[in-house]
């Protein structure tokens, strides 16, 4: 299926912003707008509607209730949220109402609604897409989008709406966490995202971490945010190694022409130290270093623990 990706789309940086109507998701959208302004990227705004698999509505399809809302002239939540997102982009000057638009509808088996999208394209071929999607659950719907067009970054709000509060939550973790674990690209989970405090980049000296530093620094620079570096040694004896990691990362940044604001070396449990230091920054960037899928599921990694415990936004780089 060649959905959003087309001849030009493949070369551009592609950002998927998940909109759920929460304040955090619009914060994420603001950040996406800043990024896409600098990177000239395509942005897709996605709202996922879950199919009622468990037949929770007691045998009456939810669509009956939705149609009834339409009959009263009320807008359905998904459409309302996406429109609000579009208006926000227009207000920020990221898109103009005059961009030519194209609407597409795709049928999805088992629902009367199907997938709907509106695609806005400017003269340079840059796209902003509003998409309303139906999926078996929200997280799967978001992750599946990657198959349709290879995204480089997923942005989603860590609002509690993504959480499924129920006794069964142990088996269905928060949507944000599920996506961060499974998504095949970098994921930014926004919490009170304020650009002014700068970004904290974590390194453990590995090749992956350095590659991540390079990309994350460039992204931050594009948005005009100051960059800082942290490395954590688990024991006092390893402090010199952590210092070397920081120095190495600093060199990478200086080579790129970016002067890091702070460099921090801490000793202790990596998760606690990063979360604690991260309080001073608006975003913590960690790289997903564990290679084995199994290990990730059963042990969890520093990246995901930081994601869970951090007070501010976290970007997991892949």
């Amino acid at each position, binding site marked *: 299926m060649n959905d959003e990706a087309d001849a030009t789309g493949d*070369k551009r*940086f592609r950002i998927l912003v998940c909109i759920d*109507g929460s304040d955090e998701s619009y914060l994420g959208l603001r950040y996406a707008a800043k990024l896409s302004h*600098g*990177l*000239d990227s395509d942005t897709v705004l996605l709202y996922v509607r879950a199919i*009622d*698999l*468990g*037949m*929770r*509505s*007691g*045998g*009456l*399809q*939810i*669509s*009956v*209730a*939705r149609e*009834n*809302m339409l*009959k*009263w002239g*009320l807008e*359905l*939540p*998904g459409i*309302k*949220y996406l429109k609000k997102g579009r208006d926000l982009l227009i207000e920020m000057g990221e898109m103009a109402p005059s961009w030519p638009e194209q609407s597409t509808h795709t049928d999805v088996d088992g629902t*009367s609604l199907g997938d709907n999208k509106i695609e806005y394209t400017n003269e340079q071929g840059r796209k902003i897409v509003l998409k309303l999607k139906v999926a078996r659950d929200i997280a*799967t719907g978001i*992750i599946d989008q*990657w*198959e349709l067009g*290879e995204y*480089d970054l997923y942005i989603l709000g860590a609002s*509690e*709406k993504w*959480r*499924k*509060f*129920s*006794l*069964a939550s142990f*088996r269905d973790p928060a949507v944000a966490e599920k996506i961060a674990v*499974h998504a*095949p690209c970098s994921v930014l989970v926004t919490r009170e995202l304020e650009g002014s405090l700068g970004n904290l980049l974590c390194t453990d000296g590995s090749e992956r971490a350095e*590659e991540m530093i*390079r*990309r994350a620094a*460039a*992204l931050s*620079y*594009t948005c005009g945010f100051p960059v800082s570096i942290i490395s954590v040694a688990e024991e006092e004896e390893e402090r010199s190694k952590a210092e070397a990691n920081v120095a190495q990362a600093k060199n990478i940044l200086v080579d*790129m*022409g970016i002067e890091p604001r702070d460099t921090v070396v801490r000793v202790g449990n990596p998760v606690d130290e990063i979360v604690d230091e991260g309080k001073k920054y608006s975003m913590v960037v960690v790289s997903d270093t564990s290679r084995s*899928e199994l290990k990730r*599921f059963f042990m969890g990694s520093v990246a995901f623990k930081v994601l869970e415990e951090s007070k501010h936004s976290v970007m997991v780089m892949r």
Partner: protein
Amino acid sequence: MRAQKLKVDFKLAAKGTRKIRRVVTMRWRVLFLRLWEKRWFLIAMLIGTGMLYLPLPNGLTEQGMIMLTMSVVATILFITEPIPLPGVALLIIIAQVVLMGMDSSAVAKSMWNDSVLFIMGSLMLAVAVVKQKLDKRIAFLIVRMTGTRTSRVCFGISAVSGILASFIGEHTVAAMMLPVGITLITLTSDDPKKVRKLAVVILLSISYGCSVAGIATPSGGARNAIMIGYWKEFFYDPTNPETHKFLIDYVKWMIFMYPMFLLQLPLVTLVLFWTFKPEYRDLSRAVVKLRRQVEAGGSMKSPDWIAVLLFICILIGWIFFSDQVGMGTVAIMGATAFLVIGLVSWEDINIGVNWGVVLLYAAAISMGLQMKNTGAALWVAENFLNLLVPLGAGEGIGLWAAVSVLTTGVTNMMSNGAAVAVLGPIVLNLATAAGESPVVIGFITAMSSSFAYLTVVGTPACTIVYASGYLKATDFLVVGWKMVIISTLVLLASAAVYWPTIGI
């Protein structure tokens, strides 16, 4: 562009073989996710296979063990939903034929009874009723009766939703009343932040009003019909006049349960106002606009009157004739009448009803009957009772509370109809083993199955109202636990005081 100055390739920092390797890892990740989503299906199947190879416990026949395994596997699948629930229903049918060696026609026969017919008919009626344009009339009626004070409007919404839901099912009323609630909210203020608490109170008035009403009459929800079916199948013997008390008809059910609904109704508004203090004490602006909107629609037209009349006829049918022709037949008659008169099209019914629900309940009931026939239900009940006796919950109010807590726990994890279908055979056997009345225990189970106030997905009305997008999942949690306590107390008080005075 600033980024290009940095000479960083954002798309993929790797080239050549590393790029290919990376794409392969990404694909593998997606594939892994697909498998990971099905993990509960595999786990359930492994547990099932393991149970079948276990040595037979004392007092359980081989057939009983197979049934027990089936219900454990089905329960895991009901809770974790790795496959669509109608798929579980099909698995139950297959397992009965393949594992139990039952005749295929016998399995098919055990699936259809009056309760299933009733569930199917009620769902068709639900769509037919929502398709009539009666919601605006009802909204008008509410605001004309209550005036403009927020608390009175909310009580009016709960009361009217509840009374309607008690007869035509909570999902029907929730679907009808949702636009009424949202219209009142949006007419008060366009900014959702300014009316956040008001929105919660109005929408939860609808959903909890419907939820507490779902137990009031047999037609309030599928679970009630399932329980009536179980009583009849398990305990009724046409040759023994002693067992006639196990035939619970529409009126008898109402006598037991309607007062419980009426008792809870004012508490809904009280609890909601006590928990969320809405921003607006008066809704006159919204009410005036709503009145104008409704009046623009003109007066009641003849199809509207016919729909109302038809519904009254169905109600009369349930009350007076259901013991002769069955409640299911009356529901089917009603749906047919709507089709014959042309008030609803078959296409609407076909799209609006989730037919999988009918299949699911049919299979769950058939499994419940086999649990009873093979003695598996009795075995579980006796063992459960042995656990309860040391806790002092082996009889009387202790046992009632235990059954209520068990049902509340299960119903918060799966749909309430499925909870009653799975638990019914066990708790009814528990009642006989403990020397309690199966009717009392049955009512307690049916009622507790509506105490799923804690989650978005707990009751049909909550699910539908949540679809509006105005509520957070935590809203249900914040107020839900209070509702659970209140409802449990009302239930236990009725079981101890009210029911004995009317003779069970």
